[in-house]
């Protein structure tokens, strides 16, 4: 990592008595697609708005591209934001919306027209420049919002729940498109999302936030396979959290466990009864009540084209996992 594009130091913001962001330190490298992931009210949007300049932090500093931007108003920051509601100007057409930021910079008329046309083709909206936002579909509006932020060529693009308003099918396609766009343009994206699937599949690195603090930062596989705390293990994906001692737990992912009718030859085994089955097509999720123990979740792929799941409710089954299958936690 060379000089980070964003460095956040000890950032705190309170709304009344409630701390929305409580002492966040964070570095985001150039060219990263960084995701801030957390449930509602975890402070991720407030953190994003402090980077954009819409909220003033109570304490701490925001350094963008080596310059302290803590007290700088939004219109003087080298940062652009894509709003969750898109915030398209209803009284301007698509081209007018996109040109808005360039006009504020005093870019020449001919260059504005050229750059608007370029960015419209980049987001595959060629020829729609004269439409009003009200005449566009949800997916098209999302692209206009993206184009309007991209046309300014910001050092840093902030995206507040960029895909939340799209329907499921469109969301999956748009996800890949946005990643491709980010890689092609070599920009730094910071995405705020509550959708862990979205964060995991798009981000090069992500931070999980909880109650105004960052619980863990790292690449997606690290957060999934090596969670630092029970909160992260539980928040990202599904985990069986088994207490193995005083302040010692084992986080075990359902797919790391083998499920058999006969006793398996793994380092650790347990036996119990299937009490619930969730058939999801490609795989089934079993809830197994361990004898004198907790209820554990086990995932098994439905490899054979059988009738539903391989085991039935009430079956006695064996669970097995290896020594390094789970993550040992102490918080």
């Amino acid at each position, binding site marked *: 990592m060379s000089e980070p594009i964003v460095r956040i130091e000890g950032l705190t913001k309170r709304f009344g008595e409630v701390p929305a962001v409580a002492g966040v330190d964070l570095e985001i490298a150039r060219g990263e697609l960084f995701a801030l992931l957390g449930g509602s009210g975890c402070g991720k949007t407030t953190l994003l708005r402090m980077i954009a300049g*819409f909220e003033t932090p109570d304490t701490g500093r925001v350094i963008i591209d080596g310059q302290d931007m803590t007290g700088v108003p*939004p*219109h003087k920051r080298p940062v652009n934001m894509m709003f969750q509601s898109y915030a398209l*100007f209803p009284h301007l057409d698509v081209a007018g919306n996109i040109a808005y930021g360039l006009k*504020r910079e005093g870019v020449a008329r001919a260059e504005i027209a050229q750059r608007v046309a370029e960015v419209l083709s980049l987001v595959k909206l060629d020829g729609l420049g004269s439409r009003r*936002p009200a005449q566009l579909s949800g997916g098209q509006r999302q692209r206009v919002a993206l184009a309007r932020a991209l046309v*300014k060529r910001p050092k840093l693009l902030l995206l507040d729940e960029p895909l939340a308003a799209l329907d499921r099918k469109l969301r999956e396609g748009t996800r890949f498109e946005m990643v491709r766009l980010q890689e092609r343009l070599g920009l730094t994206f910071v995405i705020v999302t509550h959708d862990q699937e979205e964060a995991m599949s798009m981000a090069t690195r992500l931070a999980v936030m909880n109650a105004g603090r960052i619980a863990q930062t790292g690449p997606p596989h690290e957060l999934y396979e090596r969670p630092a705390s029970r909160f992260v293990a539980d928040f990202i994906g599904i985990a069986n959290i088994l207490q193995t001692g005083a302040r010692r737990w084992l986080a075990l992912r359902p797919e790391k466990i083998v499920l058999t009718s006969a006793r398996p030859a793994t380092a650790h085994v347990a036996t119990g009864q299937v009490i619930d089955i969730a058939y999801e097509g490609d795989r089934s999720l079993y809830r197994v009540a361990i004898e004198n123990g907790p209820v554990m979740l086990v995932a098994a792929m439905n490899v054979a084209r059988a009738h539903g799941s391989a085991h039935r409710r009430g079956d006695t089954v064996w669970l097995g996992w290896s020594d390094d299958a789970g993550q040992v936690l102490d918080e």
Partner: protein
Amino acid sequence: MIGRARFAFTVLAFGYAFLYLPIALVITYSFNESRLVTVWAGLSTKWWIALFHNEAMLDAAWLSVRIGLASATLSTVLGLAAGYALARVPRFVGRTLFASLVVAPMVMPEVVMGISMLLLFVGSDQLLGGPARGFLTITIGHVTFSLAFVAIVVQARLADFDRTLEEAAMDLGATPWTTFLTVTLPLLTPALVSGWLLAFTLSLDDLILTQFVAGAQSQTLPMRVYSSVRLGVDPQINVLATIVVAIAASALIASAVLTRRSVDKRAAQ
């Protein structure tokens, strides 16, 4: 079911008749041949022609229109400022007092306002030697109450204004002032136009306050009508009433269309 519908329809018809039959009569009688207002003697446009040759009446009408234009424009500017402060500045010293003072003229008896303004203008005349009572004082008087209506329209529109639009503008590099001019103001335009039309209509037919603050020389249209009616109703009054109704109705329709259009626009988003 049918009986009920018929009952509802009858009630509706009576209600409308109660409200609009007098106006319909006035319009009909403006085309009356007879000199007597209550006797129908055949169709004629002679009172229309007479009115358009009535110098005093035309002068009064012209004065009223000028006052209407000036006071509506002034109250739109001031009402915008007041409405903006009320909607956007959450806390300042005397906010509650300010909010009640803005709307007070809507409920204050006009006689009270008239007397107080008259005292003000008499006082300033003695102390400062002006302003002379007439166009200027009437305009100021009308602004005091029509400002409240504009302020309320603006405040209501700003209350459901999507503020992320302004944030987006600032994010794209607009200063707060540019944001106001390029985003807030254009989106407030329908509210401002309907506020202006409202202020214009209120000014055009105000009689009570105007009588207090008008000088001996200036006579607005309502004053002229009122004084001529005291000498006996002339059919020209019917013609005038017809014209005023037509203007008021078109202002009302224009304001409704503008409001509807901006509501549609927002709904379409």
